[in-house]
């Protein structure tokens, strides 16, 4: 019985997703909703407005440069968070309660590490 419920759930979800896919517009159709005035403008005016031959670069660093700024910020925040966590582990600046929860530390015997807790 326990195995039947996940299988049923998966089948129902898969059926729903397949129905959604069946409703999607056909690939490459000129009447698709994505082929609106925006993409037409990018393709026809992109080279003269940005001076870049590669339309993908023209979009991500000119038309959508603000979006790319967001991506750069996400990268910055991600690496800052990772380095913060890993440096805390490496320097031994971590509380004993955390260590008991499974975070192993080579500097466990370091007396300096217990000052911060």
């Amino acid at each position, binding site marked *: 019985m326990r195995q039947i419920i996940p299988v049923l759930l998966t089948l129902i979800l898969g059926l729903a997703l397949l129905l959604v896919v069946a409703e999607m517009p056909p690939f490459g159709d000129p009447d698709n909703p994505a082929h609106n005035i925006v993409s037409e403008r990018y393709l026809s005016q992109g080279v003269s407005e940005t001076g*870049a031959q590669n339309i993908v*670069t023209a979009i991500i660093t*000119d038309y959508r440069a603000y979006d790319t*700024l967001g991506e*750069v910020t996400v990268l910055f925040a991600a690496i800052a968070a990772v380095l913060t966590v*890993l440096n805390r582990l490496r320097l031994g600046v971590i509380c004993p309660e955390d260590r008991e929860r499974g975070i192993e530390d080579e500097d466990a015997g370091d007396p300096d590490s217990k000052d911060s807790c």
Partner: protein
Amino acid sequence: MQEILILKIVVRFVIPFIQVYGFYVITAGHLSPGGGFAGGTIVAASMVLYALTFDAHQGLEKLSHERASIFESLGAIWYVGLGFLGVLVGGNFLTNGQIGIPLGTPGQLISGGLIPLLSFGIGIKVAVTVVSLYYSLVEED
């Protein structure tokens, strides 16, 4: 670590080519497929290859955490600063052609206004991010 002579010599020979290709992908991002993200990852791959073949500590000597954080911040500040160039001239944030920056002839290496400069900033940022992520994950002590 075991001394693997062939691997070390081959890697020492290959790394400059990988880095030149990575910088080519960054600088020609407005002409051919590529750009800051792809090229930065290629440059980072060369440095990860160095650290894999030799030692993570030897890699850290080339790019310490302090230097990496400086490059990270410089990449982001470079991007935002180029964005504020448009505000200073009187246009919108991160505009390129509308504020009168010469766009050059499409197809030339120096063309596209701010696009190669922005790609350069993204490339440095992505390369240093990937490399310092790798170093901090493999570093044990």
